[in-house]
């Protein structure tokens, strides 16, 4: 993490459908003995009973930027609140933004890309989505917001796993993975998750885009710490989990796409393609990330995007023995998969 980035206040966005356990997780974060002070931004009509000194009510006002880009929406209230908070440097260490269950995370994330003042003082750390193991599958069918929240997430806390059977859990997990194979998934009861699993993730930090491997095969990642909670058999399935594996679902609305090539890309043809793709299809592409190997460049180039907003930078030199390949992932709604694949093929030097 660069020094400039380190000095910025990290902001964690906490999303999740109604009743999934957002407030439980929030209170866990706040009550843990971490010695840190949080400023918490909650929806004005949100749940009560949050125990924290600095709580600010937000209005979830989404507005379009005046730049001709229809998907370029930001949270006006957040700009205003962060503005007020940032003047009080040193009074808190991090900010948590809790959204309503019906909120689309994109405008929250985009606020951090388009507002220069917000960008100067705060950095988006990660979008954490709390999902209800019992009801998520239903919500994914009837609530587009729930699907957005899963698709957008860097970290998914699959909560209330004690209320479902093992097959049900496998089912909901597969449904999540059909939408977002890249997020870290943690299975919890009463939102019991290690704070380090949800905070200080650096999910939007270009320096920390290390690997973009789907998590299909490591779906139980990070759940070791649950063992001391003595909640029976539900989670202890890693040894025999491979037998049935995860069912593979295809989600009708939300898809992800991964591209890869080991041929060095030509920046002068790749970048215009990527920018053009984002300008034209960015409304459908919720999140994008990439690690790129350009010819004539000894540095890894990394980028990430939220809808049409892209940011990229040289990250570090490729290491000796490191496989120089380019990888890109896209998560989106009605993703134009073939168009993206074809376009990418065309910019791979033959």
């Amino acid at each position, binding site marked *: 993490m660069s020094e400039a980035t380190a000095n910025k206040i990290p902001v964690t966005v906490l999303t999740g459908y109604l009743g999934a356990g957002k407030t439980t997780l929030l209170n866990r974060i706040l009550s843990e003995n971490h010695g840190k002070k949080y400023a918490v931004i909650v929806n*004005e009509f949100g749940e009560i009973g949050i125990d924290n000194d600095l709580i*600010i*009510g937000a*209005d979830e*006002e989404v*507005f*379009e*930027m*005046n*730049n001709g880009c229809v998907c370029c929406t930001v949270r*006006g*209230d957040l*700009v*205003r*609140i962060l503005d*007020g*908070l940032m*003047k*009080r*440097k040193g*009074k808190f260490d991090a900010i948590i933004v809790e959204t309503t269950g019906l909120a689309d995370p994109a405008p929250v994330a985009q606020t951090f890309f388009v*507002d*220069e*003042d917000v960008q100067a003082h705060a950095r988006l750390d990660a979008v954490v989505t709390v999902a209800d193991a019992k009801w998520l599958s239903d919500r994914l069918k009837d609530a587009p917001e729930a699907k957005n929240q899963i698709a957008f997430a860097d970290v998914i806390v699959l909560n209330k796993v004690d209320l479902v059977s093992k097959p049900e859990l496998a089912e909901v997990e597969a449904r999540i993975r059909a939408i977002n194979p890249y997020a870290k998934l943690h299975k919890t009861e009463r939102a019991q998750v290690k704070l380090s699993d949800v905070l200080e993730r650096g999910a939007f930090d270009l320096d920390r885009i290390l690997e973009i491997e789907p998590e299909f095969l490591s779906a139980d990642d990070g759940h070791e710490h649950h063992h001391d909670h003595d909640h029976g058999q539900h989670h202890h399935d890693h040894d025999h989990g491979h037998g049935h594996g995860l069912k593979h679902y295809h989600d009708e609305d939300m898809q992800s796409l991964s591209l890869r090539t080991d041929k060095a890309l030509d920046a002068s043809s790749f970048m215009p393609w990527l920018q053009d793709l984002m300008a034209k299809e960015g409304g459908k592409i919720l999140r994008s990330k990439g690690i790129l190997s350009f010819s004539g460049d000894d540095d890894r180039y990394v980028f990430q995007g939220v809808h049409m907003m892209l940011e990229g930078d040289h990250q570090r030199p490729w290491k000796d023995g490191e496989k120089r390949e380019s990888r890109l992932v896209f998560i989106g709604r009605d993703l134009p998969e073939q168009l993206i694949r074809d376009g990418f093929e065309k910019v791979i030097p033959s």
Partner: protein
Amino acid sequence: MPDFNPLQEQESIVSVTDRVVPVAIGAGVTAVHFLGDKAAFVGVEEKVTLVDPAGATSPVEVAFGGILCSTSDGKRIVMGCDDGKVVVLDREGAVSTFATDAKRRWIDSVALHPDGAVAWSAGKTAFVQAPKGEVKSFEVPSTVGGLAFAPKGLRLAIAHYNGVTLWFPNMAGNAEVLEWAGSHLGVTFSPDNKFLVTAMHEPALHGWRLVDGKHMRMTGYPARVRSIAWSAGGKGLATSGADTVIIWPFASKDGPMGKEPAMLAPLKAKVTMVACHPKQDILAAGYSDGTILMVRITDGAEILIRANKGQPVSALAWNAKGTLLAFADQDGDAGLLEL
């Protein structure tokens, strides 16, 4: 390539830095106002520090938490706080709570009328209380971005998303809405009451000629405009947001329409604060690198008040007579200059 600057601008201009009385506020400052000849530095939270021309400081506790906004008419300072309180500090240093929001929401903006009426906003609601009158409120469609009283009559401009609402608190009936797409954050009437100008979330100003609602777009800024000030007599509107002070001409009946702004005092830093002298064509400009310049508007001549050291300048004001200039930066490193 290293910067090569053969002109050494900083050394060639007239400097009065040695005449500045330094003041250490000890905490971030968001604004400075004058109560008579005392400069009142409004801290980011809890305190206002009163400083006499000799530099003697006396802090006054005004709030428990953050002070989000402030304004002054020279007799008192009205502040909006993050505990839902509107607090007033008078010339004698007495603090009183003027109003408390029922839901304890942030008081995002405040305004003062020359006749003594106070306006404030919380969320989507603007409130006005005239002296001896009752509190009246008006709700706009989205969060209030800024408030300003018209120079004449009891008329309040309420900036919000997609425009500005002009409300006459003493009159029943519909308020007038001036529409323009986008988020309007700051708002000001020209001193002659002919124009209304907003600072937008995007790096631009928008203006309306009040007689016919004609639009004026003032664009081209690299950064959001956070500080605007009318020059003496309202001939020009000086603004922050660029690496020069941008001054839009408002002397003619068409305002800046079809005209180029004046661009004065260019530096390799962004202008963060502007304050116009109350009587002469002079302004003070504070920059993101800590520089403060005094600039003659007619020819752009500059005088150095503070060298480029320290944090971005966050507060800048003249006293009513124009004999004192006060400034502070984000860290509370402040000063007073007597002219």
